[in-house]
């Protein structure tokens, strides 16, 4: 199998990462599409340096989140508005409850957004720490604080 085919297959298997990252870091549907494209392009460019002995999803999350957060730097101060979910076409929407989570997560600081996303996707704290570059204890503490803050606003 060629590198291109292998990459296409891995991208296909991990589309969920691209979808969630672009949903949480871009405001409008066209911006989300552009961000997903940019992440895919960066993944392809970095693919030759990918070590197959390592977990693909960890590598992919790092690149996807780095590209997404860096894209916010172009438009500092821009936050995802509460009405964004309503702008989505019906086919692009998940359940109402998941939409509520999207809205809440999108209001967090960019790195906190990454932390919550990784938790929601079922990653362990050591994995979250490895992707974000913090200790597992730090990741756990930060998440507890976020949960407490949400309870306070619920």
């Amino acid at each position, binding site marked *: 199998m060629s590198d291109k085919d292998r990459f296409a297959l891995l991208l296909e298997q991990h*589309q969920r990462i691209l979808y969630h990252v672009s949903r949480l870091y871009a405001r409008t549907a066209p911006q989300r599409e552009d961000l997903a494209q940019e992440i*895919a392009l960066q993944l392809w460019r*970095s693919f030759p340096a990918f070590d197959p002995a390592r977990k693909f999803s960890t590598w992919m999350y790092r690149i996807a989140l780095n590209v997404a957060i860096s894209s916010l730097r172009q438009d500092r*101060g821009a936050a995802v508005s509460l009405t964004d979910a309503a702008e989505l076409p019906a086919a*692009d929407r998940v359940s109402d409850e998941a939409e509520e989570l999207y809205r809440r997560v999108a209001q967090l600081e960019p790195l906190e957004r990454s932390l919550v996303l990784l938790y929601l996707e079922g990653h362990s704290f050591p994995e979250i720490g490895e992707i974000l570059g913090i200790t597992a204890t730090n990741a756990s503490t930060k998440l507890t604080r976020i949960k407490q803050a949400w309870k306070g606003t619920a």
Partner: protein
Amino acid sequence: MNSDFDHLTQRWREAGVPRLQFHQAMLASGTHFSRLTRGLVWECVGWGALVLLMGSILGSQRSLYALLCHIYAVVMLAMSIRELISARALDVAEPVAVLQRRWEEVEVLRIRRLKWAILAGTVLWAPFAIVLWQACTGIRVNVRGIWMGANLGFGLAVAGLTLWLSRRYPGAHRIWRAVSGESLAEAERALRRLREFQE
């Protein structure tokens, strides 16, 4: 609507995601990372050319104005090279908090350089014009009297033009924010938050 975090987490994990489509056209546009380093390479080339130009003029004119312009170009080139080296060391597959902190450090360097390039440029434009005029025509210019007035007028014109452009174009707004120190303060705040996140 149930807002219990653990319940919502469960719903999230159960939800499917729509299929994404990718376009070939995107391949030509590059990424933030490639655009950052490409832009810095061109800036280094530009400042390098100015260093060579001012160096050759300084060799023939031996004037204070030529020396000042040469020093300005050398300092700007050195700052651009420093940024380029830092930017090229960025690895997009690094842990997120690590890369974002390093990128923000490059951003702080870039904003500082932009600010000083503009501020020093508004003072040095008249000596630069004089040096260039003398190099091209060989005619010595004695503008001691009008020098200050011209500088002041130019400074005000640049401030007015930047203000006008900042309302029209987002790119120019970025320049205005850099000169006023707004961008630098924001980048330093972001850097502080990133450091705190890792603690």
